[in-house]
């Protein structure tokens, strides 16, 4: 649960997003950097979000394969 001040912690939620703590920015697959000031962010893992790279809850309405 504890991490060093310069470390980023990533935790994948089952059937949900990845929770990222301690990041200043998230880089997407095109190499674009998305800055954030939140203490923790939810990064989309289902690929269906309308607010990439951030989770917008859409995973809840897509059927689980």
């Amino acid at each position, binding site marked *: 649960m504890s991490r060093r001040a310069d470390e980023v912690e990533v935790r994948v939620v089952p059937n949900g*997003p990845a*929770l990222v703590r301690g990041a200043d920015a998230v880089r997407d697959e095109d190499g674009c950097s998305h800055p954030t000031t*939140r*203490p*923790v962010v*939810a990064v989309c893992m289902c690929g269906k979000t309308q607010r990439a790279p*951030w989770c*917008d*809850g859409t995973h*809840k309405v897509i059927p689980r394969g």
Partner: protein
Amino acid sequence: MHLPRARGPLSTCVIERLDGSRSRLDPDAIDTFPDDVVRDDDLQLALWVLYELHYRGFAEVSDALEWAPDVIAFRGVLEAGLESALREMVQSVDRGDPDGPFVDRLLEVIESGAGPSLATYVQREATTEQVRELMQQRSVYHLKESDPHSWVIPRLDDATKSALVELQYDEYGAGRADRVHATMFARLLDALDLDSSYGAHIDRAPGYALAENNMMSMFGLHRRLRGAAMGHLAAFESTSSLPCRRYAMGIRRLGLPEAVAEYYDEHVEADAVHEQVAVRDVCGRLVSGAPQLEGDVLLGAAAYVRMEEIVAGSILGAWSRGESCLLPRQMDAVA
């Protein structure tokens, strides 16, 4: 903020006590509760006014009355009425397999919400006037957004507390005053040319809208109900992202100012994070450290779900009859 207008005998007593025209409140004078406590305009206003002494208070009321024994005793009787109504209201909610994993049970309760969707209506059909009404009603909570859950912070073990504070820190703007969610909501009201001062729309908020708010204050102010407060938080955050996206779409469909949509955009993104933190970290850690609170967490989540059904049903019902979802504006005596 000034004291609102009374709506019946209970709120009259409370307002008279607070403005100094009555010397004490008599808790024994309340011998019966109304049939429908949650929708009762008078009882809910009385309770709302009493709770507000712990938040921002009223310009004309002495701060010392916050802890006056007769005021607290009177509040206690009203709270007992609300608590028993809430417990009855959630009896029909399936709390899942008692031997199942806690997080699964909590998610099952949260996902049990039924009834028509207010967000879908706003997305597709609401008029500008209906959105303006809804925002006035919502201002009862959103101008003190997150405050009711903050009462719980010192009542938690360290691990649970750190999770709750992480969430609340984001709600309070993560160190940026202009990103405090309540401040963003005030900007939304300004953009709609509505009064954004704290408590501005209380006189037009129906009993059920005050009840929704009073429930949170009751859970937050009683250490005994800390589990319910956190279950409520988890259900609230978990049912926010997708509806907020619909609200933002409806607001853009109507061509309303960008500051209005911006508030909802922020909540799509923020609450997608908060729901995970609230369910898994806040409630998960709370119950793993204090398993006896599991039932209370589920109670809080179920009460949120049921209350939302009542609120959405009441608002959509009023609109379908061609009425406002606000109480009529009180006209001062006309000569």
